[in-house]
Structures are given as C-alpha cells and as structure tokens.
C-alpha cells in the first residue's frame, strides 16, 4: 500500500519532539471539555426545541390555526323573489362539509316563508318530532309531516299532532341582495329549540 505516512491512522507518538504536542489527552483540560459539553448540550437542546415548533404546528393542524372559516352560508338566491311570498317556498340548499382537503356536498330541504311579523324566515324541513322531512300541502295551507301526521302553520307554528314544538327557524342573512342561510341541526323531542350542530 501507500507509503505516505499521513494516509494511515496516526499512532500517538509516545515522545513528541516538537512543542505543539500531538494528541491532547482527554484528561488535559477537563474543565474546558466539560464546559463545552454543557454549552453544546444546552444550545443543541434549544435549537432542537426551536426546530420542533414548525413540526408540531404542522402535524397538529388545526390546533394552532387561526379562525378556520367558521360556519358556512348557503345561497338561497336573490332576496327579491321572496318579498311577495304567497306560500312557503320549498328550496334545496347545498351544504358543504370540509374533511381536510376534501369537501362533501349534501343537499338539505328548507322552506322560505313569512314569519309572524312579516319578515322572511327560513325553516328547516326536519320535523322536531322524529326528524322526518315535513312537506308543504298547498290545498290545506299547512305543513304536514308524512311520518306521524304533525301539522304546522305556514310560518312554522305548531298546529296539531305529536311534535313537541313548531318548526325550527334557521339563522339567515342578506349578502349582496341574496338570501343566505346557515344550516343547523336541532335536538328533537324537546319543547324548546336547541342547536346540536
């Protein structure tokens, strides 16, 4: 092999001839070594913790996210079309549910109607009794639940049958002249409306 002495692992010379002594022994400067050891350990730990911050924030999303959108509003079309309502209007709205990077779109039935004070209101079609879809019966001028025969007035007020309360109103708003509704689910079989999601 090679004769170049610098190619081989150098042997610690027992008796170094030159003043810059090779192979500083581990016992030579124990204080300096220990100090650097502590310095490296502490600064290494600090840097490691700092580096973990983005990892934790990324992997635990959405724990550290600021305001992830809030509830979604569904479009019911221009407000104008509801000002002259003669009877409750059945509308199918699209509900968007976010599941990570996926979005599920489902359809829900709501009724746009006039409330007691003449204001436009939106009622969910879910019966407060057992959750069947309430139908509007034009000839009899009331809502009728096909499952157990509950009936409601055009503004959703309870008339007859097993339901414990009237039909539930949904939060609405008007954006750029369009009626928007926020779909919610309510606890059934209780006399007072309770939002459950």
């Amino acid at each position, binding site marked *: *092999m*090679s*004769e*170049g*002495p*610098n*190619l*081989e*692992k*150098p042997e*610690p*010379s027992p008796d170094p001839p*030159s003043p*810059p002594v*090779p*192979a*500083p022994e*581990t016992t030579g400067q124990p204080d*300096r*070594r220990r100090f*650097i*050891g502590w310095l*490296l350990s502490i600064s*290494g730990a600090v*840097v490691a913790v700092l*580096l973990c*911050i*983005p*990892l934790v*924030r*990324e*992997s635990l*999303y*959405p724990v*550290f*996210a600021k305001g992830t959108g809030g509830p979604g509003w569904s479009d019911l079309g221009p407000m104008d079309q509801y000002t002259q309502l003669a009877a409750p209007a*059945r509308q199918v709205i*699209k509900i968007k549910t*976010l*599941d*990570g*990077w*996926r*979005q*599920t*779109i*489902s*359809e829900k*039935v709501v009724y746009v109607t006039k409330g007691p004070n003449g204001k436009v209101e939106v009622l969910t079609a879910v019966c407060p009794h*057992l*959750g*069947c*879809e*309430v*139908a*509007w019966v034009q000839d009899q001028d009331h809502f009728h*639940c*096909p*499952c*157990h025969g509950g009936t409601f007035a055009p503004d959703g007020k309870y008339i007859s049958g097993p339901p414990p309360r009237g039909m539930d109103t949904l939060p609405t708003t008007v954006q750029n002249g369009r009626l928007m509704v926020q779909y919610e689910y309510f606890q059934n079989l209780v006399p007072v409306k309770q939002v459950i999601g």
Partner: protein
Amino acid sequence: MPESPISPNPHSSLPPEDHGTLAEWFDRRIGWRVPLREFLEERIPGGARWAYVFGSGLLFLLLSQAVTGIFLAMYYVPSADHAHTTVAYVMKVVTDGAFLRSIHAYGASIMVILLVIHVTQTFMYGSYKGRRELMWISGCILFALVLGMAFTGYLLPWDERAYFATAVGTNAMSEGPIIGQWLKLALRGGADMGTLTLSRFFVLHVFLIPLGLLAFVGAHLFLFRKAGPAGPPSPGTAEKKVGIFYPTQVLLDAAFALLLIIILALFAHFVPKGLGPSVNPADTSFIPRPEWYYRPLFQWLKYWEGPLVVIGILVVPGIITALFLGLPFYDRRPERRPWRRPVAVGTFCFVLGALIVLGIISYRVDNKDPVVAAQLVRQEEAEKQFMQAPFQPEVAGGSITASSTSEGSGSNPQTAKGKQIFESQGCVVCHGQGAVGTSMAVKLVGVGQQLPPDQLANLIRHPNAKMKAGGMPSFPLSDNDMKSLITYLDSLK
C-alpha cells in the same frame, strides 16, 4: 471502563446496589460511555478544520430531509387524482406546511451543492487514497441515490412543472439502448405518465431509496472510522498536530449545521417554494425544464441526435462514471498534494467546469429565445397566481353534485315526478338520497326487480307489521303519484 462495585456476596444473584449520578445509573445498564468516548475521541490528523464540515453537514441535511419528509407524508396522498390537492392543502391551509415543504425542497438543492463540495474536497485532498476504495465507492453510490431522491421527489407535487419535467426525464431514459424503452415503461407503469408513475416514484422516494441511503450511509461512516481521516494532503502536516474530534471539530460541525438551518429557514420563510397549477397533459404550450442540478445533463442531451444519441447518453457518461468510480483502483500513487497530480485534478476540474458551463448555456439559451423566455415567464406567473388563489378543496365522491341530482330526472318526466314525491313525502329521510338506504331503513335500489308494481304499491299504502315496527308510515298516494314513484324506484340502479 467504569468500575462496577463488586458485590460483597459472590453467591448473591442480586446486582450491586446503585449509587452515583443518574448518568452512571444509565451507564451501568446501557454501557454508552465507552462507545461515546470512542466516538468523540476520533483522531484528526492535522487538527480540526472547516474543510471537514461538509460530510457531517450532509448527514445533518439528510436527517432534516427525513424528518420534514415524514411530516409532509402526513398529508400527502400518492395518487394522480389527489396528490396535487393534498400538496396545495399543505401549502395553503396547514399551519407551517409551506415552511416545512420549502425546507424539504430547498434542502434537496443544498444537499446537491454540499455533495459536489464534499466530492471536490475529497478529490483535491486525495482522501480517497490508502485503502479507501470501498469508502469511495459507497460515497459514489450515495451520490447516485441522492440524485435519485431528487428526481423521484420532484414529481410528487404533481403540478405542471413536476409532471412535464419527469415526462422529459423518463423520455430521455428511453433513448438509452436495449433497456431504455423497457426502463421508461417500467418507471411510468405504462406508455404514458399516470397514477402508476406517481405510486412508483412515491415508493422509490419514501421507501426504497431511503433504505439504500440508510445502508450506504452506515457503510460509508463505518469505513470512514475504520480507515480514519486522511488529514491534510501535504506530507508532514498531519504529524505536526493531531487533533481530536471533540470538542473543536464538533463545534465546527455544529456551527456549520446551524448555518445550514439558518440559510434554509430564511429561504423557506421569505421565498417559500411555489406550487403550480395541477397537471394538464393536454397543455402543449408548457415548456418543461428540470431543476437546476439536472440542467447540465438536459443541455448535454440536446447535442446528440439520431444514431449518435448512444454516445451522448451512454458512452460518454459511462466512461466518466467508470473513471470516477474506479479512481482509487487505478490512481495508486501515494501523492496527495493537488498541484502534484495535474492529470487527475485537471480532468476533475474539466468535467466539473464542463457541467457548470453546460448549465449556464442551458439558462442562456432559454433567455435568448424570446418565445421560450416569454412562455417561461408565463409559467412562473401561473405558479404565482395559483399560490395566491385560495385553497380549493376536492369534491368527495358520493357528494350530491349537479350531475348526480339531474340523473334520474332528466329523461323521463314521470321519473322526475316520482323523485319529487320520494323527496317531498319524506321517503328520502329514512331511505336516503337516491334510496340507497340508511341506518333507519333499507335501500330501495333494485326493489322493482324483487316485487311487481302492484305489490309494491300495496306495501307503500299498507305497510306490513315488520315495516310498521321499523317506523314505516302508510302513504295514501293517488294512483298517478304511486305510478310515478314506482317508475322512479325502478329507474334506480
């Protein structure tokens, strides 16, 4: 060796009592102090130097790539229809997702730069000499594996840039003789790029090549410790002073690692890596360009056409690879000073210089052609626009979409009326959209094949006891409505 206290009773099977520091408690059980001392007291001929930080810097970056890669995989889906959406989600929605992906993507570039510096330093110092053939070869394999990681990782975001660059890359492979076509077909999983290409590149990038990296990094480090550091090339320098790995070299390595972190973090924070629009294979105007480290090769392949392509793609790269790989076997002179090895150093500098020049030419050719330059600017703009647009979630399968709701109501008015009855009478509440069934009631799809219409109508008007028990009300529909409803149910498949 730590002195373990001798048990007073040699017949006792109980271990000696523990005392001393916590570190000693652990050391008695693990015995980590001896290997740690062995590791830290590595001798460094000639003493610690900044020139030696590149190997440990590469190891540090590899670790960073592994960690960031694992965290990116938390959101990534390796399928042609989801990959781009999931990367866009990481970039636009997930907290610090853009930061981590940028660290990962820029980390790849910095690794290639460090690799070239590391190889150059090894070459200039002649550190491959003296029973270091296997170390050199394992290093060459690591170089190839890192380039393989860069090539496979580049496709995964599945944006236009990634897609077209990989299309060109795999096409270039197919120009190789004999196995070229076969290699392209195997890598792509078909004649065209598609979801199989993505799966294969994902498995290569995340499982297979990392396994190779792990094995060869292990071998490289083991062989390095076996042979020992070569030290500075001038004879005599190494003997004057022998340093020890700890603490000086450890401090230099740590400082370099810190510098790498700071550079990466600054880039990732202030110029986050972009993501282009999703793949559109029909977009013929897109001009594919590889990442900068593949530019020299990209430019080189342009010069070879027709039958000469074999020379460009196989003969010349083959000769250079063989010369490079076999270096410690034929360059056996002990001389390590670079100025005393003009042929070797000259050849190395020529090849490295040629690669750099080819890369520069590649960029200059693009800039000089106004059509290409304008298109490349457009592509950059499209990427910026896509990054500024809000995240667009993917509409999940099974969602009610415009197309699926019009189905069954489009062609036949009676079916449409039946669907309306199904929904307004509340059947949909229990039997579900499209009568697919829910936890409350059975599915009615295909019920028309099981029951004749009159029997079905009778059951809807007068449910049997079992149906009533399940909550099925009776529906006194008119004959006409009943007919529509049954036509609708029949239409469901």
